[in-house]
């Protein structure tokens, strides 16, 4: 073992038990004399047979299995430097002399890809000089987190993940999308969630909420709220406007975050699969209404959401969101521009478009999301979904519930911002 490495280990103070040392030893040392003789095809074949111990350990999804997997592969890694280093041979897309970015990484004359060198360099840098810096910046246990992150990264770049038929990518949503939105919910809007116990732990439900705020931030916040406040970390599957699926980039993210087009077929399919489906039946009328009309519920579409819930026999959970109305106080609507751009509205707020991109920063209002008592629908006969009177009544019931809850929350609210 190189003394530099030992020192680095001592400085960082992580306890290097035998196993870990065994894992570290092969990398920095012993390269050279035996390698060229055993390189090429032989090494490649061996790599295919004996996966890298780290690969083996990380490929195990269950934590209980990991010690065994690692123990099992340890003899291989003790054999010498080859097993760990061998992927370099197998994985050389373009042979060429590689630069040596780190002094303790010996230059490899035999064909190695640039990416291999970079990977090596990053690993060495983290294990060596940068380790201490990382520890100071990221706190203890950063290596575990980094290893977890690498496992995630590997699954992403090799495509080893699953999407459902709607294109929902649960892993990406959990690890990246929700993580990106969460600070906005928790720190910026200081989101307070009430009545999360009204959401079922499993099985379908239809969450019906008021829509506001020019940009559908309320929908994203509700997704975070439901994910973080249900014990089973449920995902909200939103029904989004068709505009979302026309826009490039947005449609891709929306599909991956589990949203789908607001149509009866999709709503029913999701509800029958036992998902929590979110719907904002006011649509553009709600989200693009002027500031003067804040917290006044608009028409609830044609009640299609109620028939979907009735057909699937799932409860309807009314949801009232306070705080979203004031993030972009819309004092005007550039109708001509909106028509030119094919958008439902182009907002004019006290700051937008006057301050340019700065005007697009939402005001830091204090948010409350209240989930109301679920309205059961399973007591109705199956043909009830075709009874327009019942649909109207149920739609009104939901609408009234949301509206009254909004008023109640507004009375309790001390200030828009606190």
């Amino acid at each position, binding site marked *: 073992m190189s003394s530099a490495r030992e020192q680095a280990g001592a400085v*960082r103070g*992580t306890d*290097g*038990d035998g196993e*870990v040392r065994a894992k*570290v030893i092969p*990398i920095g040392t012993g390269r050279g004399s035996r390698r060229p003789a055993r390189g090429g095809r032989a090494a490649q074949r061996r790599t295919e047979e004996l996966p*890298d*111990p*780290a*690969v083996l350990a*990380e490929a195990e*999804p269950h*934590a209980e299995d990991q010690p065994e997997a*690692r123990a099992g592969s340890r003899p291989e890694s003790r054999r010498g430097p080859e097993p760990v280093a061998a*992927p*370099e041979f*197998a*994985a050389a*897309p373009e042979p060429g002399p590689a630069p040596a970015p780190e002094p303790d990484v010996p230059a490899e004359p035999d064909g190695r890809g640039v*990416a*291999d060198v970079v*990977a090596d360099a990053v*690993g*060495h840098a*983290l*294990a060596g000089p940068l380790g201490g810096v990382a520890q100071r910046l990221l706190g203890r246990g950063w*290596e*575990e*987190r*980094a*290893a*977890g*992150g*690498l*496992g995630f*990264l*590997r699954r992403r*770049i*090799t*495509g*080893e993940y699953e*999407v459902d*038929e*709607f*294109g929902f990518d649960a892993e990406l949503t959990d690890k990246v999308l929700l993580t990106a939105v969460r600070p906005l919910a928790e720190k910026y809007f200081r989101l307070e969630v009430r009545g999360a116990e009204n959401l079922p732990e499993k099985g379908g439900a239809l969450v019906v909420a008021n829509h506001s705020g020019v940009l559908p931030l309320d929908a994203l916040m509700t997704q975070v709220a439901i994910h973080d406040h249900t014990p089973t970390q449920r995902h909200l599957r939103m029904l989004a406007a*068709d505009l979302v*699926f*026309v826009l*490039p*980039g*947005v*449609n*891709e993210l929306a599909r*991956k975050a589990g949203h*789908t*087009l607001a149509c009866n*077929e*999709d709503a029913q*399919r999701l509800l029958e699969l036992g998902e929590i489906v979110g719907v904002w039946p006011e649509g553009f009328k709600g989200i693009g209404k002027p500031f003067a009309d804040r917290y006044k519920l608009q028409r609830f579409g044609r009640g299609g959401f109620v028939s979907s819930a009735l057909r699937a026999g799932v409860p309807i959970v009314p949801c009232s969101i306070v705080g979203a109305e004031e993030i972009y106080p819309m004092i005007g609507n550039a109708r001509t521009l909106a028509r030119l751009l094919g958008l439902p509205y182009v907002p004019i707020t006290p700051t937008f478009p006057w301050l340019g991109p700065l005007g697009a920063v939402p005001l830091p209002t204090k948010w409350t999301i209240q989930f109301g008592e679920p309205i059961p629908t399973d007591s109705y006969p199956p043909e009830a979904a075709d009874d327009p009177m019942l649909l109207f009544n149920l739609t009104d019931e939901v609408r009234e519930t949301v509206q009254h809850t909004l008023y109640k929350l507004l009375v309790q609210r001390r200030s828009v911002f606190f």
Partner: protein
Amino acid sequence: MLVTGVARHLGSRYVQAIRRQPDVDLVVGVDLQPSAHDLDGTSDPDGLAALAEYLFVRADIRRPAVAGVIARHGVDTVVHLNVSTTALGSTSRSTVKETNVIGTMQLLAAAQKAAGVQRLVVKSTTSVYGSAPRDPAVFSERMQPKVLPSGGFAKDAVEVEGYVRGFARRRPDVAVCVLRFANIVGPHADTPLADYFSLPVLPTVLGYDPRLQFVHEDDAVEVLRLASVEPRRGTTNAGTFNVAGEGVMVLSQAARRLGRPTVPMLLPAVSWMAGMARQTRLLDFSPEQMRLLTHGRVVDTTQLRETFGYHPAYTTEQALADLARSGRPGLLRAEQVAGWTSKVAAQLRVTELPNGGGKRR
């Protein structure tokens, strides 16, 4: 039994499969040219006795000659596989369209006159549902497309299905089965999507990541075989069925599994490249193919599994894995990429791997 389109890979494989069927005694293959495969089975003389007789007739289904073939051989089952995106030996769009539409009309006219015909199987495609941003996420057989395909193969297929429905009305005694296949992939499948996936670098449309479904060619052949014989107990094989492997993949994910780097480009740029590729005959990359690779399409296969009674042996994922195994390895092979991350990971001094509650599932 009459089979059209036997020169193609799927047709050839289907003939090989159906000749092993015990209650089939004669298979007549019709196409413009004989198959490259050994359909006579002469390479295996021992097994020949167990096979049904095979007869190849070089005929153009756009001409009425096919009526004579049906009458001469007393055909009772017509399997129409000659509905495809490309014509053999021709890249002209009008030839393809004629073969698809006029060919189907001629064939159906001949079948309508032949009293002995009891069964009609037509290969169609899920592209009859179109591909548009305002589509529902999952299409079932009863749904109508939101935006009708405006041209190309998808429109041909819509028209073919229209004629087949007309035929079914006029000949209610014939069991008609329309099979809407998702993209067929496999080690040898000669479909435009397979050509696309064999490109070293995959051009994709920036800002779109379509959902795709694949069906393995083995499954395709098996579904066709089941559709052209008497249905098993408790199942029915007359009607319209979506055929796709279970599960869905997005294009970027499929590209990563194949180890092919993607190049996202703006939609007009990709369209222009596709046009160039088509003109230079490097690759048949039709506008509806483009739409598929922009908006994607997913179909519901409940009918196939529950009514038709067939569970595809390959899921979408496995079908793609089979394609990956058989094709040339990509520039970024998955193992290689995984090697980079594990190399970095190996150098971290991880004393204890995080348990399920951590970043890892």
